């Protein structure tokens, strides 16, 4: 490097020149334009996703599988359990199917419980044989059974179809008045089950935030991807039933924080709708969460959070009774006005731009013990593990 180059370098390094005002105006308008363009792109993308998912989840499938009209009046004096179907381990004999199983199909297992207080009524059973699987070809429970609703209590042994991401372990005790008469399982059973399930659901929500001097509303939408792994241990004496856990669909709109800043005042709601086969649950909650920022870099932030969410939960179950009895079908709903979910988790967000962020969060959520009346007393420990991701803007 010669002295002339040194001279050039030195002079260039110290050289300053004030640009005119129009440069800053141009920069500002360019930033605004870009922001608007991105918002439009994300809005369109979110709308398309919402429409696609809504179509996927809500448009009824093909017509339900034919239900046998052949009735069987044999009184089962024992209760059989269905064959092993992943992820439930079972030692019961193989059951029959009335139609080929497809990936989107829902399997139902009918189980029997005779009841002295259950006079037969002329309703079509779901199947003509006990312990039979009935293949249904629609995902929507409302389209599944076109059978009369019987107004009996929970007097029949029934099968509960659970959504897999819920209840990694469950202890259920059925205490219907005549349950012992209906219980025909001869022995004590012990199950260890496990599995991994992946569900996809739609995320959307709205959230208001206020941070002096800024206030605003965050609107987000995205796809919720849930991976669920569980190990289940359950034991039963005499009346253990077997569940099938086939994840079908879950729609979980809920807001999440997208701001890089702390949000000292935050109002949000959570509305969760879960439908699986014979169960449907609607929950409205107000998450009261505290969060701690693990790191907050200019582009990314990670927080740990935890808290409680008072909720009102509406649960409905379509119950399948025993072929040959009148307890063939029952639809019942419960309202659990005082419910609490404890939750904790981690969230990581990364800025895409000043107004968009990618967020991924992992939440561990447990439901408090609850009891509800109506002839049934069920103790539930619900544990949700939700891995969600979405783009917020």
């Amino acid at each position: 490097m010669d002295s002339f180059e040194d001279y050039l370098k030195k002079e260039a390094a110290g050289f300053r020149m004030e640009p005119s005002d129009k440069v800053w105006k141009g920069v500002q308008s360019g930033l605004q334009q870009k922001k608007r363009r991105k918002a439009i792109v994300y809005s369109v993308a979110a709308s398309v996703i919402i429409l696609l998912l809504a179509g996927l989840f809500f448009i009824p499938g093909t017509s339900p599988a034919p239900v046998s009209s052949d009735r069987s009046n044999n009184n089962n004096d024992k209760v059989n359990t269905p064959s092993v179907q992943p992820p439930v381990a079972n030692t019961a004999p193989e059951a029959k199917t009335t139609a080929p199983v497809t990936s989107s199909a829902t399997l139902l297992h009918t189980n029997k419980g005779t009841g002295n207080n259950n006079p037969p009524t002329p309703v079509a059973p779901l199947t003509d044989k006990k312990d039979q699987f009935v293949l249904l070809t629609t995902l929507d429970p409302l389209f599944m059974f076109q059978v009369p609703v019987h107004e009996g209590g929970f007097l029949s042994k029934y099968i509960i179809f659970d959504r897999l991401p819920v209840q990694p372990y469950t202890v259920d005790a059925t205490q219907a008045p005549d349950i012992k008469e209906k219980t025909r399982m001869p022995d004590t059973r012990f199950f260890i089950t496990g599995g991994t399930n992946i569900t996809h659901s739609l995320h959307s929500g709205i959230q208001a935030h206020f941070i002096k001097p800024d206030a605003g509303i965050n609107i987000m939408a995205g796809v919720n991807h849930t991976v669920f792994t569980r190990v289940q241990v359950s034991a039963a004496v005499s009346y253990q039933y077997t569940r099938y856990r086939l994840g079908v669909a879950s729609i979980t709109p809920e807001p999440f924080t997208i701001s890089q800043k702390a949000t000292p005042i935050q109002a949000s709601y959570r509305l969760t709708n879960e439908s699986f086969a014979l169960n449907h649950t609607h929950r409205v909650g107000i998450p009261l969460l505290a969060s701690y920022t693990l790191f907050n870099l200019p582009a990314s932030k990670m927080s740990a959070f935890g808290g409680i969410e008072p909720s009102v939960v509406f649960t409905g179950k379509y119950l399948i009774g025993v072929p040959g009895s009148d307890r063939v079908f029952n639809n019942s709903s419960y309202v659990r006005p005082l419910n609490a979910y404890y939750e904790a988790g981690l969230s990581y967000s990364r800025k895409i731009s000043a107004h968009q962020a990618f967020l991924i969060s992992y939440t561990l959520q447990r439901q408090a013990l609850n009891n509800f009346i109506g002839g049934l007393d069920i103790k539930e420990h619900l544990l949700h593990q939700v891995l969600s991701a979405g783009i917020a803007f």
Partner: protein
Amino acid sequence: MQNDEELIAGSMDGDVRAQKALYEKYAALLMGISYRYARNHADAEDILQDAFLKIFQSLSRFRFEGSFEGWMRRIVVTTALNYMNRSKHIRESLAIEAMSYEVPAQQEEASIKLNGNDLMICIQSLPDGFRTVLNLHAIEGYSHKEISSMLQISESTSRSQYMRAKAMLAMRILERNKILVPVDKAG
């Protein structure tokens, strides 16, 4: 006065005041760079505007691993090169300059030195190709190999154009000095 980190964080959050503060802090420096590459003042401002847009939109990619100023300088230089390439200024002018300019073999380059403003006027008066190669090599410190790939020219072209550019600049400095001396004496 907020430090760079706060200004960057604020700018990323869309805080216009932080963006303005960041702009005001570095606009003069970056304008000086874009001015060296541009043909004229208007082009320099266009380059600066494009560069600041890129800077604000890419802040999330700045890792705080090196100098923020250096990072911005690179953006300005790249933007300037793209701007010139857009109208094929550089390559065309390099081809033309190679044929048409008679450059003295050696000027008394070290004997006369102008102040920064006058020197920049001299640099800006150079043909596009010469100016670009001179800026990249002598001031930014890029090697001829790097320049050849940036401008898509051969390494030997870069080298020869640089020598010519340097000689021409020395000549312009001398000329400029002749113009300035009477003024200085008069003053």
